[in-house]
């Protein structure tokens, strides 16, 4: 089991940030290589740029804690996965955006680490620039 984590400070209040992070359909705005998304009940389906679908189960959508958790269920070669996004008010101006992942097999961590880091950068930039409603 590998664990990876990315974070960014966002110069917006946590409620504003949670409006984007807590909406599972908005991943298409900031996650690299995602061209389409559908959500039905607790199943999210992404379509990647190469046409590959990714099936996910939404595990947690906690508005009070501002926590979103999901699992990749296929067809990427994943044996175990739990992705967690937290929007944290930590007493500093703005808020902290934390994206943690537990994944097996280990080589998938390499693949996700870079793309998640890029995604978090995209998300923070979009929120800091107040452009989330323009996309």
């Amino acid at each position, binding site marked *: 089991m590998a664990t990876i984590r990315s974070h960014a400070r966002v110069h917006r209040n946590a409620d504003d940030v949670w409006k984007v992070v807590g909406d599972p359909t908005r991943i298409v705005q900031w996650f*690299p290589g995602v061209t389409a998304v559908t959500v039905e009940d607790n199943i999210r389906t992404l379509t990647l*740029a190469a046409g590959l679908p990714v099936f996910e189960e939404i595990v947690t959508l906690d508005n009070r804690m501002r926590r979103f958790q999901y699992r990749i269920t296929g067809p990427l070669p994943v044996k175990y996965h739990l992705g967690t996004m937290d929007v944290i008010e930590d007493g500093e101006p703005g808020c902290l955006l934390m994206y943690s992942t537990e994944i097996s097999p280990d080589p998938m961590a390499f693949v996700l680490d870079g793309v998640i880091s890029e995604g978090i950068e995209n998300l923070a930039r979009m929120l800091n620039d107040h452009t989330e409603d323009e996309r």
Partner: protein
Amino acid sequence: MGRKILFITTDQMRYDAIGANGGNVARTPNIDSFAANGISYDRAQPQNVVCMPSRSTMVTGQNVGTHGVWMNGVPLPVESPSVAAVLHDAGYRTALIGKSHFEPLLDPFLRFEENRQGFAGATEGHRGFDHMELATHGAAGFTHYSRFIRKEHPEAIGMFFQVLDGDLEVSDVPGGDSGAPQIKHNAVPRDWYHTDWVADRTISWLDGLKADDDWFCWMSFPDPHHPWDPPESELHRVDWRELDLPVGYPQNQAEREAIIDSKPRHWRLWYDGKLVSNYEAPCKWVPATLTADQIREVNAMAHIENELIDEAIGRVLAAIDAKGWSDDLDIVFTTDHGEFQGDFGLLFKGPYHVDSLMRLPLIWRPAPSAGGGINATARVSKPVGLLDLAPTFCTIAGVQPPEWMEGRPLPIDDADAVARGFERVTTEWDNHQPDGTEIHLRTIMRDNFVCTTYQPGTVHDGTEGELYDLVLDPLQQVNLWDDPERRALRDELLIDLAANFVEPREFRHAEAPV
């Protein structure tokens, strides 16, 4: 009209693979003809012994510490300098056809330009190449070659060895007649195989040029890198049962293991299957189980692949000749790193700085029209590196090598090498594996000695090293690191290494395992 440049690379080829360097199995008459009419470098080394760092050195002319691609999976930034851009700006038409691997191959999110172009079938290139058509070792992935197989011959997808297993690890599934890892008898017809595809696409690109165009074409064959799955129609070329075992393979187990035990401990740990420090070596495979027959069969497969490469080169040369360009054609032939191929009872590659992986074939056949005293046949014994390629291409094109290139134009003979101070070459290894394993090697080759020091990591405490006398011990079986009589020499080499090595400024994120 200037000189044309055909830069030919293979992947993971040993120095002794070709006839011009003493190889006596694979028939390589075209490559040998470059040596017969040009300059052979008998001590050419990569700056790193895996693909992405080494190829990044070729295209930038920089040390690994400068371009920053310190292990496979770390992409070369798009804004990095490129010799192709220099030549393009000088009026050259530029192309890269075959394996690039400046960016990760395992890219399901299509984050990297080379994969995006391959997936879409776009060929506009980048990094200064006007044209790119890319390939890797099989039908998987997002290269132009995999698109070709997917679109034109989908029935061939399953014919190739499946490199990754269900755990996304490099597969150790046995194959061939001997059950060696990464061998498969591949039913793919020869003209669908990537070696011939690379030659076909190169010829097609050349056909599109005007007669008076100056051009630089990097023709980059993915073989003889594992998996060893050449078209089975070609297996008749070399009967593995008839092959001698490599001279670097001590056949007596006790002798073999004593040699490995004289080296830093990660050698034995890998041999026993207790540590894998390179993703590309199957992590479930135990080298100690490797049999003599498996070594013979792996070698036969590599020889077959090398013959196919040579014949593909011959087709491209004929096409160039038909265009009337031969007299103005410079050819540079090399590879990115070597392969154990049975030496020490090992296969593949990793943090092991011995000649199996570090001594490369490198030949420069200057254009017959070049004159200037560089038409003579020569063998250069002084050390050169792959970082010397980019400034050499600039010189051929009549362009001053930019200051950001850290290599120098290749010497044309030993006298030139001595006059210009080609005394040493350095090679490095750094890796951080997903399981936390870290290994760091710094190596200098000079005065016919190879000296490697190990920086502290998870396996070494920083006191370990290797020192080999290449004259008395050409197979590097006697580690002199702890020999008191060689202490002064060792210290001198380490001081020279420290003075000439470019340390990485940062360890950028690996974005994929490979």
